[in-house]
């Protein structure tokens, strides 16, 4: 671990994280040119030890997880392409073992940008007919695993004026359904899909023996949940995903430690940190849900300041994901889920509310 004065500047780090996520989200639809506009020259990779064989690499994109063992290395998320040399150097400082797997938690460019370079630095274990049919191509790089929806969106024809995401960044192996799991380094690796949350292709990666969860952007310590509606995200799914993470985590010492959580952005965490974040997300969602039930307009909901208690911690008025946008996204979802019912139909029906208030 390193003490870096520049990284200790909260404002600087906040700006970098916001820029990273914004660039990452844009890259998912606009190609790697967007990442090239950001200057990564001064970014240093902070290697944080999580377990004896698991590390969190913090740079300028989403956090990277590295799991090391006898069979090789598994990498979760690869940050931006221009950072690949530094990420690889950080990995090689930990181990010279071959990189066998890259897992992407979702499609944003700050998590997949380094797929090409990092996968090509590795090798896939393959033999028999596979090698016979494919030749060197069968083993020339690490597998890149993600949920099918990640590939579907990355490979979809781009919208007008936008670039196709480069083929080299696409996952090479996808899964459908609830999860993909395998044994690697004598460790059960579970890649568990969380539908319609941050996006519609999110996965959490659970390293069962090491007792570490990499959450992608389903959980961060730096901002309100970014609900990428354009890529299939929803606040309801986001909260479900946070609860699913809590179903995995088990604390060791009275709600501390135990299962360690590597967030999509921000510092190393554990179950309690996810609880605080889940509580915040649920409380804000429930407030807006109740206000929608009462027939309030978006402006009226904003005037109620439903995020006031969390704004100094997670909110911002600038950047790609403002507090106002967070509220508006939830509002639209709640309206869609709970369209105002005609008066006679709602008469006598007990409201299904989780937050208590004075009602009408």
């Amino acid at each position, binding site marked *: *671990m390193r003490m870096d004065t520049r990284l*200790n500047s909260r404002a600087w780090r906040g700006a970098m994280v916001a820029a990273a996520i914004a660039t990452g989200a844009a890259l998912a639809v606009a190609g790697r040119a967007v990442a090239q506009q950001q200057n990564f020259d001064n970014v240093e990779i902070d290697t944080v030890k999580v377990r004896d064989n698991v590390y969190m690499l913090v740079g300028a994109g989403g956090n990277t997880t590295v799991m090391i063992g006898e069979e090789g290395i598994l990498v979760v998320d690869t940050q931006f392409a221009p950072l690949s040399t530094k990420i690889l150097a950080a990995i090689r400082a930990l181990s010279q073992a071959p990189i066998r797997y890259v897992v992407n938690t979702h499609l944003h460019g700050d998590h997949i940008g380094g797929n090409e370079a990092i996968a090509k630095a590795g090798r896939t274990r393959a033999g028999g007919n596979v090698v016979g049919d494919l030749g060197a191509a069968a083993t020339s790089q690490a597998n890149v695993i993600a949920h099918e929806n990640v590939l579907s969106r990355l490979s979809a024809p781009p919208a007008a004026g936008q670039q196709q995401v480069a083929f080299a960044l696409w996952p090479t192996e996808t899964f459908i359904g609830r999860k993909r799991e395998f044994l690697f380094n004598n460790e059960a690796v579970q890649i568990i899909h969380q539908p319609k949350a941050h996006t519609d292709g999110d996965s959490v990666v659970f390293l069962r023996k090491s007792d570490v969860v990499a959450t992608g952007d389903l959980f961060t310590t730096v901002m309100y949940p970014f609900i990428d509606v354009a890529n299939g995200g929803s606040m309801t799914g986001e909260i479900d995903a946070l609860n699913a993470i809590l179903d995995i985590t088990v604390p060791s*010492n*009275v*709600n*501390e430690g135990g299962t360690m959580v590597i967030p999509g952005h921000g510092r190393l965490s554990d*179950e309690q940190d996810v609880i605080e974040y889940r509580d915040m997300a649920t*409380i804000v969602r429930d407030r807006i849900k109740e206000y929608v039930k009462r027939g309030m307009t978006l402006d009226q909901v904003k005037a109620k300041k439903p995020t006031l208690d969390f704004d100094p911690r997670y909110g911002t008025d600038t950047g790609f994901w403002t507090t106002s946008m967070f509220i508006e996204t939830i509002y639209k979802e709640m309206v869609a889920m709970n369209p105002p019912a005609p008066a006679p139909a709602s008469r006598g029906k007990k409201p299904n509310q989780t937050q208590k208030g*004075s009602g009408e």
Partner: protein
Amino acid sequence: MDGTWQPRYHEDQPERIPGPELRDYLGLPINDAARQFADSWDPGRITLPEEQCRVHVSPYIYRGPTNLRIWEEKHPKTQDVQAIKHYHSTFEQTRTIYMDGRPHPGPNAAHTWMGFSTGRWDGDMLIIETTHLKQGWVRRNGLPMSDRAKMTEYWVRNGDLLTQIVFLFDPVYLTEPLVKSQEFVRSPRELPAQTWLWVCDPVVEIATREEGVVPAYLPGEHPFAEEFGRRWGIPEVAVRGGAETQYPEFQEVVKQAPKPAPLPPPSRGAARVTGPGQQQQQQGR
């Protein structure tokens, strides 16, 4: 400072032993975000299994009932003090205060209930700096302390009396440093082993609660919002706290502010407070 210490509660006793009343924010330099957090806080949250064993962070744990054991850890070859340890019986927390000059971890390290502490001596006074704290309480009636808070402590021993003075800095929920003090008396004998234990096994307490529910009140609609001020005849301007309520001159403001109507005496079988929200509250429970 080695030995076993036990707190004295004469200072802020109502908060520290029976516990603070809901919406009692007196004398705390909180901001509007903290107020809304606490105004919305439902104690039912700590009935959730995952929150039942929630620990008080080091800036708050010394306020409560606890037995405190302090000892030094020394380097076996040099006998230099490498760390001072504090063990709290409540929550079974061991806190390490590094005395070997090491730096605090970087910004990406995990946060803990006790945080990361380093200490130094200034004469006979021990000064401790703490970072990397988890989110906790400024006051356990829902007033939050964020995980960005930092703490500076000053520990002084006078005979069998140990005094801790705490400066809490929280850029998220405080507008000024919160200054508190606690005192401890040296225990003349070792305590029975079981008095040092705190066992917490979370269970489902409310069988009918739907999954995913996080109990909370809507902002501004807490059914007991007026109870504290009305019970004690304290003006709303004081109840709501804020930096100005810490200072002696605020007494003049309190004297001139209108007092709330007193609570009606509770009648047999009646709710203590009637008003907006109460009916909804009873239906919801």
